[in-house]
């Protein structure tokens, strides 16, 4: 083998240390214009009027783009997968979050573009804003999302909740010696790539568009751009792959579509680079999660069943949140096997920035909840937390909440390594555990039915 185990050099290392790597902001083109966005200063508002004539009349301004210029205004990041679109590329009648783009100006310099944004006459009627997912279901809650209301309602066509039902949850709770519940809430988090969102779009002489993109998701972005612009994919060439950090924040198509539209309208290359302030205030971030866990536990340390309610704060629009909650549901037992499950997960809309991926989409906050909860259960049982975790740890052929047999789960070895690294004592029994399929002593009745090879589910 030439690669596995070899200490190969970085293929792009020389470029990175000599200033030769070309990031999107480093692309230089003759006649390139610079863009700036007018963004909503309000969390939630009705847009009463929008007059761009003063901005358009300014020297050095080449185009002002509003909702009226977008061929397909409303689309969704998962529409290619059948999820209805809900997000306008530019706000039309309503601004649903602070920082939502309303207009884009392309001008000779970025200073002129910003001045022109300030010259756009826009009227707002502020509306009550919704920030707390727990209030989204109230009858008098402000309505956030035009397509779905306050929570996504089209799972499997017509369900308003992502459900997991596995085993016999009522029997598990009937058999429990102990029931332990907890509520866990994690906060939103900005990915903070050093390179802010940036795009350079170039109209080519043959009518095609070249888009220099910082996206992490080239084909998602190609689909989003072509859908909003109503162009066949053959008309758009995406140039990407050199990303100045993303960490999930560049999965959304933040800047490509509007920059491409500006290039079309001006017939000039256009660059749109977000400021750090825009990146912090208006780019998609990791969303907050509200998680309620109730575990049915036996006195000897088995988790017999779990009921869980998750409310994901998606922000104002869906983007990838429906996927995020689905993935979350598949992982809601974490590194542990629990045969009887009742999971409900909601994608709830609030007047926040639309949320997106960040390093373990839907999972990272969940892991916090699961591990804190495991610690609490062990404490309630008076059991060593390592013993509790190792006992319930996934083994070969245990099945996930969505009934996939684990082929190579590493939980046991990870826990043993953690104990070693932190100087925690493990008994010989715990030290001897392996990931192998459960043997008789590790296969109590409640687990027997869910072993993958047993075909129980």
């Amino acid at each position, binding site marked *: 083998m030439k690669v596995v185990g070899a200490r190969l050099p970085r293929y792009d290392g020389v470029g990175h240390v*000599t200033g030769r790597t070309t990031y999107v902001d480093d692309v230089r083109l003759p006649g390139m214009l610079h863009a700036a966005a007018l963004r909503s200063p309000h969390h939630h508002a009705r847009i009463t009027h929008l007059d761009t004539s003063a901005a358009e009349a300014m020297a050095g301004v080449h185009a002002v783009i509003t909702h009226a210029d977008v061929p397909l205004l409303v689309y969704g990041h998962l529409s290619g997968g059948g999820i209805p679109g809900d997000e306008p590329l530019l706000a039309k009648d309503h601004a649903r979050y602070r920082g939502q783009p309303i207009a884009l100006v392309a001008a000779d310099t970025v200073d002129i573009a910003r001045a022109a944004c300030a010259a756009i006459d826009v009227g707002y009627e502020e509306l009550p804003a919704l920030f707390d997912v727990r209030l989204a279901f109230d009858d008098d809650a402000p309505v956030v999302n035009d397509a779905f209301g306050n929570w996504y309602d089209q799972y499997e066509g017509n369900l308003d909740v992502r459900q997991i039902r596995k085993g016999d949850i009522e029997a598990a709770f009937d058999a429990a010696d102990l029931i332990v519940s907890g509520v866990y809430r994690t906060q939103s988090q900005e990915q903070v*790539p050093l390179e802010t969102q940036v795009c350079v779009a170039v109209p080519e002489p043959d009518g095609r568009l070249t888009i220099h993109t910082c996206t992490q998701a080239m084909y998602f972005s190609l689909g989003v751009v072509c859908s909003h612009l109503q162009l066949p994919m053959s008309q758009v060439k995406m140039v990407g792959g050199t990303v100045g950090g993303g960490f999930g924040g560049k999965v959304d198509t933040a800047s490509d579509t509007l920059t491409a539209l500006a290039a079309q309208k001006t017939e000039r290359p256009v660059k749109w680079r977000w400021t750090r302030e825009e990146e912090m205030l208006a780019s998609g971030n990791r969303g907050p999660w509200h998680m309620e866990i109730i575990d049915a536990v036996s006195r000897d340390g088995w988790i017999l069943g779990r009921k869980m309610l998750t409310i994901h704060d998606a922000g104002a629009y869906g983007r990838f949140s429906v996927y995020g909650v689905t993935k979350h549901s598949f992982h809601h037992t974490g590194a542990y096997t629990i045969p009887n499950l009742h999971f409900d997960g909601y994608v709830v809309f609030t007047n926040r920035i639309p949320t997106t991926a960040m390093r373990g989409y839907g999972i990272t906050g969940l892991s916090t909840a699961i591990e804190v909860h495991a610690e609490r259960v062990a404490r309630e049982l008076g059991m060593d937390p390592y013993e509790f975790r190792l006992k319930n740890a996934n083994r070969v052929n245990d099945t996930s909440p969505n009934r996939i047999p684990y082929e190579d789960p590493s939980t046991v070895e990870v826990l043993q390594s953690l104990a070693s690294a932190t100087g925690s004592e493990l008994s010989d029994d715990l030290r001897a555990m392996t990931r192998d399929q459960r043997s008789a002593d590790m296969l109590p009745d409640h687990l027997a039915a869910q072993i993958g090879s047993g075909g129980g589910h």
Partner: protein
Amino acid sequence: MELTVNSVSCTVQSPPLTSLLNVLREELDITSPKAGCESGGCGACTVLVDGQPRRSCLTALCTVDGAAVVTVEGLGTPEDLSRVQQAFIHHYAAQCGFCSDGMVVAATAYVNAGGSDDTDAIREALAGHFCRCTGYVKILEAVAAAARGDELDIDSTASSANNTYVTIAGAES
């Protein structure tokens, strides 16, 4: 105003309060200093001004009239890499690379000033340089290697020192 940039004399036309970052990037098309935050917080725009590392985004052109400016392009070329550049390659200290230009410049100033391989001293020298990818450990190892004058093979990547992993807090495991 006059600048010497990477040993080339330039007459620049930007207004006096233009940031050195914008002069370099937009007037001179020298794109290695990066506009990460444009408020002095991230270090990605760092260049040498008369040998000293400076945040070019916070440096007004009129304050550096006549100065010698060096960007990472002026430290070495792909055919003739500087020691610090070789160390960053060999120790895998660049990941996405967006902070690397500023990091290499600051590390060069540190090594040129006779800096040692002491981890705390390197941390102090690179304070204010953000990297969101590496976790910093590889960068510290690279600068230490350059400071020591290690043999550096850019056609391979180094093992971690003694196969241990040093955390940013300094604990070894």
